């Protein structure tokens, strides 16, 4: 794309088709809202999925009725890593331009979580305020959710080998994304990470709006590892040749055999400077205009998320005039390297769910001489998955020599402890405490005053540990994070 296209969100704000509030829809809304309120009153869960779950039981079409049929504009974000963080950036950018953007709660990205967003947004007759929904959708829920949303833009962030036991194989996920691309109308924007070969190769025949984003840096910020997910040409399976590598398998690549190569970038990160755990400075070229930005979150992956968010603005035809002020105020999503003061000690909380997020987080928190005190936790739940073999693809070897004490927790603690042993952490430095509350106490007790504890935990243990920290007054509640 060469210039900002007309803003079709504005255009779509014409009078909506009236929603026929059927008795069933009203019943679903009443029950969903009541269920959410009750669960919060009882202190059971944070109500990010229950209203949608209940409402869909009563009216399975509720999402379609509330969103697609009313013409409520929406943006779908999918991919293996960075959905929540990018969603926050997009929501902030849109609000900065005066658009009432609303998003589903962090990680509530299955059908019931998305439905919860629509249910809680509506009144009892299904009427919703103007604006736009920013919806993160789990790769496994795409086929179910996207047709019911009829989105104006679909953003594909990246494809990593994410919880193989949930989806079978990476290529099944890319097939699901391609089927979504095929069903999108031409005026909907298809926004893709050009640096990820598998993502860039998706839906080559699709006609319509397409916006690409990536890095235009003159040096690598990463190197290829044997664990990199897709480093073969997605077209002909030849090993890709990389001119520069930016993050895992993302980079400037070309296939020596069939000529498949990184497409030109509409939105490009042209300068990147990491300054400690608190901030990332970057320059992003958006359709020829350079934006100099500061984001209060660390890591190379944050630069990808920012570029993706700006690419969505391009796709929607909204000039991000206030980007630098809005992005400077976007705090990390829960557990995305949150810095938490715990009395006279400091906690760095990192939510990690696969080798890539683990390795990226390890890199982002890796400022010598930290981390020396570590709490790691993994649990097998339906959300976290059952297969933890990927722990063996995490580069624990890189930090093992500096670790003084590691507390291992969660229901998969024994597997994690074994992994650490083979990474070079002597078992005498490891304590296994399955219970999360006790693990936090044990880990903090080993930290000296004014010292720092780094926590790396899967989804469920992060929620649990953060809940404990909230009870102790160290952080706000999850829904404000």
């Amino acid at each position: 794309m060469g210039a900002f296209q007309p803003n079709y969100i504005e255009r779509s704000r014409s009078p909506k088709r009236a929603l026929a509030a059927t008795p069933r829809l009203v019943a679903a809304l009443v029950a969903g809202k009541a269920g959410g309120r009750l669960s919060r009153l009882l202190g059971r869960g944070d109500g990010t999925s229950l209203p949608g779950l209940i409402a869909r039981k009563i009216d399975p079409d509720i999402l379609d009725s509330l969103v697609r049929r009313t013409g409520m504009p929406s943006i779908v974000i999918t991919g293996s890593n960075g959905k929540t963080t990018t969603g926050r950036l997009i929501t902030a950018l849109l609000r900065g331009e005066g658009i009432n953007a609303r998003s589903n709660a962090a990680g509530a990205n299955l059908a019931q979580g998305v439905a919860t967003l629509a249910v809680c947004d509506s009144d009892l007759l299904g009427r919703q305020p103007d604006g736009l929904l920013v919806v993160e959708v789990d790769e496994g829920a795409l086929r179910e959710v996207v047709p019911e949303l009829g989105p104006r833009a679909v953003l594909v962030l990246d494809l990593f080998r994410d919880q193989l036991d949930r989806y079978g194989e990476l290529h099944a996920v890319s097939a699901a994304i391609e089927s979504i691309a095929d069903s999108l109308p031409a005026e909907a924007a298809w926004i893709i990470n050009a640096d990820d070969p598998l993502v860039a190769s998706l839906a080559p025949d699709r006609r319509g709006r397409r916006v690409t984003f990536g890095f235009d840096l003159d040096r690598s910020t990463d190197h290829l590892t044997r664990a990199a997910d897709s480093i073969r040409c997605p077209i002909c399976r030849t090993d890709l040749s990389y001119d520069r590598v930016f993050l895992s398998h993302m980079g400037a690549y070309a296939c020596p055999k069939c000529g498949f190569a990184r497409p030109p970038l509409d939105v490009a990160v042209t300068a990147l400077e990491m300054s400690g755990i608190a901030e990332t400075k970057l320059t992003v070229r958006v359709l020829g205009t350079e934006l100099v930005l500061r984001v209060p979150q660390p890591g190379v992956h944050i630069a990808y998320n920012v570029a993706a968010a700006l690419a969505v603005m391009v796709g929607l035809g909204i000039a991000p005039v206030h980007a630098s002020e809005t992005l400077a105020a976007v705090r990390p999503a829960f557990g995305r390297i949150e810095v938490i003061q715990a009395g006279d000690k400091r906690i760095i909380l990192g939510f990690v769910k696969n080798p890539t997020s683990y390795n990226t987080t390890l890199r982002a928190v890796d400022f010598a001489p930290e981390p020396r005190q570590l709490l790691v936790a993994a649990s097998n739940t339906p959300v976290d998955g059952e297969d933890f073999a990927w722990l063996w693809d995490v580069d624990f070897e890189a930090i093992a020599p500096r670790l003084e004490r590691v507390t291992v927790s969660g229901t998969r603690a024994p597997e994690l402890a074994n992994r650490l042993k083979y990474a070079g952490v002597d078992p005498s430095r490891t304590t296994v405490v399955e219970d999360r509350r006790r693990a936090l106490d044990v880990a903090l007790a080993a930290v000296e005053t004014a010292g720092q504890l780094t926590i790396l935990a899967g989804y469920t243990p992060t929620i649990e540990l953060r809940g404990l920290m909230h009870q102790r007054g160290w952080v706000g509640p999850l829904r404000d994070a």
Partner: protein
Amino acid sequence: MLESLPDGQSHLDYPVIRVAHIYSSLLNVAGDGGNLSAIEHRARWRGIATAIVPVEVGETPDFAAFDMIFIQGGQDVEMAVAADDLQHKGFSLREAADQGVVIFAVCAGLQLLGHRYIPSSGAALTGIGLLDLETRAGPKRFMQHAACEVHIGDRTGTVVGFENHSGLTELGRDVRPFGKVLAGAGNNGVDGTEGAIRDNVYATYLHGPVLPKNPWLADHLIQIALERKVGRPVDLPRLDDAVETSAHVAALNSAERNRGRRTALEPALLLRTRRPAPEWTPPSSSFR
């Protein structure tokens, strides 16, 4: 734990164990690299050095010159690339197997060492026929914790891991099962067999990775590789395996919850029936 040695040096009594890692970048899913880590560390903790040599597409070393060979899991598309290339390695690999080199194969590795893999559509992938077995794509994917009972020499042990495959493997006459299914689907969800063994070739569907949480199996592989190399019985010093044992027990408990269920994709909480594992009968079919 014994002192580790710098790379390339070994205990006075033992030479360096040479390990070939076939398709270390192509077939590398599900953390199977941890199997190499288990061999390397458990040898090193006993003062025995290892040299791990990646063998990629297009490379055709003399496999009989290695002491151990690993070929592990991969996704379908990668497996097709590997199948093509493996034809060039087949002769040397069969020679190595005949000479007693220790070969450890996991999942896609198991399928490729067999006669062929028949997908649900398209042409069959030709294996190298090092193992008398054949695999056909099945309608479901088995994704669950699994356990089997393994008899090797005079030892009997439990092996735990995580299976993730849709291929249905039938064993021929010239191999015996690696294990008898205690929980999980095994080779095909029907006959109670898991994996395959011939000579010093061990093939299994179990990821996990399997060796770090089944240290006795890792030690057995090290021991037979060493014994073959030095030409006399080897008595490996015992290690403190408390951490490994704990991981083993946790995985076994997870597998026990799957006992009798064909696949973890069925609703786990509603269908917690405890049917016994199917009776194991020796395979009778052969593909030769």
